[in-house]
């Protein structure tokens, strides 16, 4: 039977990104009349195994000791071998750095085509088409993949999770033949932001820009974020000025996010910034300049000095949440 393979990393668990990939895979499998096959690399815990078995029709776990942590060449070898054995029509991944590194090379080894950062998938006359944002979010393109399999990494939060079924798929172990030596050797893996969820996975983001004028106001923005259960972000100007860590940067040269709500405070909305957040489902802005481009992307906003708005907003939000 035809297959859609989704690739998940055990280390990440069945997180929101993985759920989005599974959701996209389930709908694409439905359109293609194909089976949804989840491939998990590494050693998934029981919670992940049962969650994946409940959404997929088949599960393969690649639990080789060499795959305990991510390595580009070894993961590529393993996934190539598994995909070759099952001849899928499509292979879906999330848009984390490791998946982005793997996808084009995997497509090449399988004789297929790859496309980046998909926002929607559909089948047209038997061919798989992907909608994606281009020119820094200023335009949308529909891309048709010309070779099979179609290897696509997805802006996974843009996809609803897959429904879980009553029945559980059988979990098979992959049989692999991996090289014992690789030309690249991992010497250190540093996790700096383990406590924080990924900005790309945030449901709500509170973001500050150049107009804040310094690092201090971010403490006030943090209060808004705490009340809403939001994550903090910033524009390039604020990161380049050293007010907040570079990992907070949203934009063309930073993170690309699409939360349910993006609150832009003292951010004018330069192309660079819009490229990272214009796919947000709802944008709200506080800006002193009514002509600021950010308002063109807003559902609602307020034209006022943030210094006057923020203290009142903290008070009102706290009262409404209480």
């Amino acid at each position, binding site marked *: 039977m035809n297959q859609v393979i989704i690739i998940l990393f055990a280390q990440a668990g069945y997180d929101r990104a993985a759920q989005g990939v599974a959701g996209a895979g389930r709908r694409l499998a439905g359109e293609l009349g194909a089976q949804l096959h989840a491939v998990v690399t590494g050693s998934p815990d029981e919670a992940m195994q049962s969650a994946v078995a409940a959404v997929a029709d088949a599960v393969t776990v690649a639990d080789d000791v060499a795959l305990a942590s991510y390595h580009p060449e070894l993961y590529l070898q393993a996934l190539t071998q598994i995909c070759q054995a099952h001849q899928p029509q499509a292979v879906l991944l999330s848009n984390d*750095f490791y998946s982005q590194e793997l996808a084009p090379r995997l497509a090449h080894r399988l004789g297929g085509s790859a496309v980046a950062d998909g926002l929607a998938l559909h089948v047209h006359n038997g061919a798989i088409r992907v909608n994606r944002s281009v020119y820094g979010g200023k335009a949308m393109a529909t891309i048709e993949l010309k070779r099979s399999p179609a290897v696509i990494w997805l802006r996974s939060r843009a996809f609803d999770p897959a429904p879980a079924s009553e029945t559980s798929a059988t979990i098979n172990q992959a049989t692999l033949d991996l090289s014992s030596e690789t030309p690249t050797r991992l010497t250190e893996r540093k996790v700096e932001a383990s406590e924080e969820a990924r900005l790309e996975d945030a449901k709500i983001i509170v973001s500050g820009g150049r107009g804040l004028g310094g690092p201090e106001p971010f403490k006030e923005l943090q209060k808004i974020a705490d009340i809403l259960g939001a994550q903090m972000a910033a524009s390039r100007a604020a990161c380049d000025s050293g007010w907040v860590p*570079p990992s907070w940067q949203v934009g063309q040269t930073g993170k690309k996010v699409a939360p349910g709500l993006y609150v832009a405070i003292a951010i004018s909305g330069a192309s660079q910034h819009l490229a990272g957040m214009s796919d947000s489902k709802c944008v709200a802005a506080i800006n002193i300049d009514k002509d600021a481009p950010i308002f063109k992307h807003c*559902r609602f906003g307020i034209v006022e000095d943030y210094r006057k708005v923020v203290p009142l907003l903290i008070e009102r939000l706290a009262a409404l949440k209480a």
Partner: protein
Amino acid sequence: MALNIIVCVKQILDPEIPSRDFRVDNEKHEAVRGSANLVTNIFCENALETALQLKEKSGGKITAVTYGAESAEDSLRKALAMKTDAAVHILNDGNLHPDALSVAKVLAAAIRKIGDYDLIMVGRESGDWGVGQTGGLLAEELGLPSVSFVDTIEVSDDGVNLKRQTDVGFDRFAAKTPLVVTITNDDHNVPRIPKTRDIMMSSRQPLAKWTLADLGVNTDEIRAGNGYYEVVELFIPVKETNCEFVDGDTLEDKVDKLAQRIIEVTGAM
């Protein structure tokens, strides 16, 4: 160990062009240039900067390579002004927005023709189409290992030590050369501004011009540039541009409305 470094660069439409000036050609599926500038893709400039710093520390030779229209020569002249040692322009006389595999095949053929290389560097993605595949496909075409999102490179005894960004921190690798890396931006690789004198000099420096025929690639396939994927539609999405400015008699009233709207949206999630 002094390395022979090849840096692949791409010329693109200035990504800073404001949305209000941005138009697309619905038939050709490409952006209308209008009065916008053509610039070197920022991540390619980060790659050039990384290469130049590596050379300053450990010696070596840097060759900048581009596959593009006549105008792409400007990106190579700028690379020469930044002090790369050589430049190669493969003229694209076919589809000006070829798919990623066509680009990788052309670059791989050019790199084989250059012959002597230890490290191949490309930007992580471009600021126009953001395809993000040139590095990975190039590695496969050349049969080389690859590491993406690299921001720091140092020469070691038998290759290079790399630091690359991940979603949650960073990885370090000890890698043997030859190797393909994709470069991302970091505090350390902000591209240098060439000196006026070097810009003047760069216009007189030798610059190799190759055609697809010189590379022994399948020219029909490469010129068509759509055997891997094809753009079937390009459009400017209609956004909800009607921003509702919260109203009220006093600032307190307005902020109260703002807070209520925020709670409505978050409550519906």
